[in-house]
């Protein structure tokens, strides 16, 4: 307990993490693709911590892809995936992975829907 007396929680982090991901290069247990869709559950203001998390939550107020989050907050994909994983872990973000296997049989209806949508652009 002696170590804890060095600072209290209100002091905030005395030293910023040397890297936003604290050295992590893999997005934990979540399988995040660049077109995995993510959406924030809460508002970024509720997340009173590191600004990067708040910026990411602000970028995900509507469903967007991991790639869009990366472009919006101007951080590389690998970094964004780790930070998004943290937010998923904390229950502040929902995600939906793209279909893993796009087999022609199962996706005829989907392909036709995409074709119709593009024709109507």
């Amino acid at each position, binding site marked *: 307990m002696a170590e804890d007396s060095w600072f209290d929680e209100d002091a905030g982090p005395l030293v910023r993490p040397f890297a936003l991901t604290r050295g992590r290069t893999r997005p934990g247990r979540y399988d995040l*693709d660049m*077109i995995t869709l993510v959406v924030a559950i809460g508002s970024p203001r509720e997340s009173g911590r590191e600004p990067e998390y708040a910026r990411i939550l602000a970028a995900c107020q509507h469903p967007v892809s991991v790639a869009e989050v990366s*472009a919006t907050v101007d951080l590389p994909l*690998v970094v964004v995936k780790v930070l998004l994983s943290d937010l998923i872990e904390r229950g502040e973000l929902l*995600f*939906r992975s793209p279909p893993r296997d*796009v087999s022609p*049989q199962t996706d005829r209806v989907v392909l036709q829907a*995409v074709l119709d949508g593009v024709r109507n652009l």
Partner: protein
Amino acid sequence: MVSATSDGLVLGQSALKLIVAGGFGVGKTTMVGAVSEIPPLRTEELLTEAGAGIDDITGVDRKTTTTVALDFGRITVNPELVLYLFGTPGQERFWFMWDELAAGALGAVVLADTRRLDSCFPAVDFFEHRDIPFVLAVNCFDGSPRYPVEQVRDALDIGARVPIMHCDVRSRESSKEVLVTLLEHLVHRAEVSALT
């Protein structure tokens, strides 16, 4: 591993992607921008010592951190479906990015430039070897020679089933037509494979 939906009730949209590939300066980002509902966005991936795909850059003796830029756009197909269009990295040595891009892609547009037809060879090879369906779109630059489609097919040794067409990537209608051709090709393939 959690790879499915964390809450399908709230997040009812799915995302799909197409790839726009081709040699450097052939107009990939222009085409993405012509049909995208948002101005093309740029995302970056880091290639580091610890990064995925390090094994793929054999022959590189110095370990460095390199940034690979990807331009992409978005088309909301309907309330449930979003289609992303990703341009391949301009620098073709970043093949590991192509693998990540190609994973789960519906298909690809390979853009060709008649002034440098061979610059689309790597992309054609890539998709052929991975059995990823593609169309070849010959971007007609001002003043570039306009070869008949069959002459392009012969010159590039492209299989008879691969659609080949001319296009102008600056034109929304023309770029849309390329995507429609690709998607018709995909639907046709799906129908054929459902019959067999």
